[in-house]
């Protein structure tokens, strides 16, 4: 498949502060790529570089094979949607939608056609004569998306478009953005710090930290096979459990903690390891089984319930394993109380092991 966007050795500094260093990224044609990372890791900066709103300090950017590194935003075939909506306050919705078209001298009747088309897709026909101040947050963001839509751009750039909306609206608009992508099949780059948004929307997720892409994979791979401890901890809610210990070579290999050890027959090692290597063992709360089933697992142990957090469909249970906090998910219908003793177990097949020093997957 051909690449829509190629980023080569991109660097960006704000004065002495290096925000992006030698970043490489290929985005395929029609792909929905999510840039995910904690606040301040350089996601917006990267997106602004792609849009042409920031002058890069080094490297090159190609869009559809074109070197656009030093081109103006309008020459790049991109549309952008911002967190704060960024609608022009003194213009009506119609004025907002037509602004870009007028700037590129599109004839009047054609502008009207395009606006009608975009308004139909986004269901904002009834709002065209209103000013942004008279719209709700959700409506504003639709208009902002419409502004990119009318210009029929090749690439959509979203910078945390849903962060200013309340939870319910966020979920609704998320689905609409997904629907829009399925309909238009444009390349979309979507910045968020919300892993649910990332998981639900993305064809591929690029997880960023300190201006570097940590992992670029489809959501399932990122969830199941995080390349390092940071990615493992960032993806998943509630977060992954981590246990400290060391690896023991042998047949079978095992993970040895202060209390007990885990048989690693089923674990697919991706790197060789040394006997006694200090590692962190990660297992997700939703991968823990409880009760009779637990005894059939390669690892099982009885633990005492410390805190329960009922969440409706599930209950999150806090306990201690190896003297470390350990959480597991339980069907919300099962009655459980603090102080109860329960038998828990898991299969290392779906666990992740990271070197303690490098934090890379073993």
């Amino acid at each position, binding site marked *: 498949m051909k690449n829509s966007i190629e980023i080569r050795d991109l660097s960006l500094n704000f004065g002495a502060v290096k925000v992006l260093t030698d970043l490489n990224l290929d985005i395929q044609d029609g792909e929905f790529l999510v840039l995910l990372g904690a606040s301040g890791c350089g996601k917006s900066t990267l997106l602004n570089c792609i849009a042409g709103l920031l002058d890069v300090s080094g490297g090159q950017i190609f869009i559809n094979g074109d070197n656009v590194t030093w081109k103006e935003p309008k020459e790049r075939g991109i549309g952008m949607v911002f967190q704060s909506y960024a609608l022009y306050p003194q213009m009506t919705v119609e004025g907002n939608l037509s602004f*870009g078209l007028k700037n590129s001298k599109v004839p009047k009747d054609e502008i009207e056609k395009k606006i009608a088309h975009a308004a139909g897709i986004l269901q904002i026909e009834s709002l065209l004569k209103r000013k942004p101040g008279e719209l709700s947050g959700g409506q504003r963001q639709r208009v902002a998306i419409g502004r990119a839509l009318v210009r029929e751009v090749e690439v959509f750039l979203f910078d945390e478009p849903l962060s200013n909306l309340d939870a319910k609206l966020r979920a609704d608009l998320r689905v609409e953005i997904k629907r829009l992508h399925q309909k238009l099949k444009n390349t979309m780059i979507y910045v968020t710090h919300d892993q649910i948004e990332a998981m639900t929307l993305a064809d591929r997720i690029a997880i960023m930290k300190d201006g570097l892409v940590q992992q670029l994979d489809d959501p399932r791979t990122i969830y199941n096979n995080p390349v390092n401890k940071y990615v493992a901890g960032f993806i998943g809610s509630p977060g992954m459990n981590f246990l400290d210990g060391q690896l023991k070579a042998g047949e079978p290999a095992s993970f040895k903690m202060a209390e007990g050890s885990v048989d690693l027959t089923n674990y697919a090692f991706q790197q060789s390891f040394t006997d006694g290597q200090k590692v962190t063992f990660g297992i997700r709360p939703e991968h823990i089984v409880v009760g009779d089933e637990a005894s059939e697992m390669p690892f099982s142990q009885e633990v005492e319930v410390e805190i329960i957090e009922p969440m409706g469909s599930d209950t999150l249970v806090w306990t201690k394993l190896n003297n470390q906090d350990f959480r597991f998910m339980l069907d919300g219908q099962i009655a459980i109380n603090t102080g109860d003793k329960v038998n828990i177990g898991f299969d290392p097949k779906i666990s992740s092991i990271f070197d303690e020093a490098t934090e890379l997957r073993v």
Partner: protein
Amino acid sequence: MMNEPYGPRPGKILNPTRIMVYGVLIVAAIYYLLPLYIMITTSMKGLPEIRMGNIFALPVEVTFAPWAKAWDSACTGLYCEGLKTGFWNSVIITIPSVIVSIAIASVNGYALSNWKFKGSEVFFTILIFGSFIPFQVMLYPLVIVTRELGIFGSLWGIIFIHTIFGMPILTLLFRNYFASLPEELFKAARVDGAGFWGIFFKIMVPMSVPIFVVAVILQITGIWNDFLFGVVFAGTENFPMTVQLNNIVNSKQGVTEYNVNMAATILTGAVPLIVYFLSGKYFVRGIAAGAVKG
């Protein structure tokens, strides 16, 4: 329920701090209003009544003759035309100076806040530093500059000078205001293909009415009240109202007509006063808006 406070919310009481604040405010108000009171009453008295010496008394016989004389026929050392020539001169100086200085400063401020270029911060610092240099230091060099340009002692000369001297403060005002507008709007407009001027006229200016109002008020009052530049750069036939007022008040011929002088002074101050009264609300609002971000 029982432990919650109940009953109507207590009203604000006059505590000592409040009395102090009001006291200071009242004294300050009297301090400024008393001269105005004396000016207005004196301007409506005849000369014999003034000579009786009670400056605080209301006029016994109200007359507007001093006002008419101040406007139409009061004498400077040379002519007896009153203030009216000076008034129109001031109008002719003020309007283009206000327009030109604000037009240039707003674009300056916009460029400095949104189109940062290498050295833009240094440029800005120098510009601001310029506002701390006393006028007197620059007076003679500017006389030479305007003379070389061939505009010394002309309308263009004085407009040029007002534009230059308005630049630091106005640029600061506009830059800060534009910097307080959301950056994403500017970015959105760039993505939408608008250029330097397109963004300025279609996006920034429509959102900046308050700061333009502030700038207009600042400039009208500043330029109208100017004396020094007017007397140096405008040339005799273009002397603004302030200069003419001075010449009337200081003319040494005959008896000193206090009532005419008072009327002339009020007439000269009337324009800034009216501008303040009509737009004070915008002024405060705009200044506050511009001050948010540095």
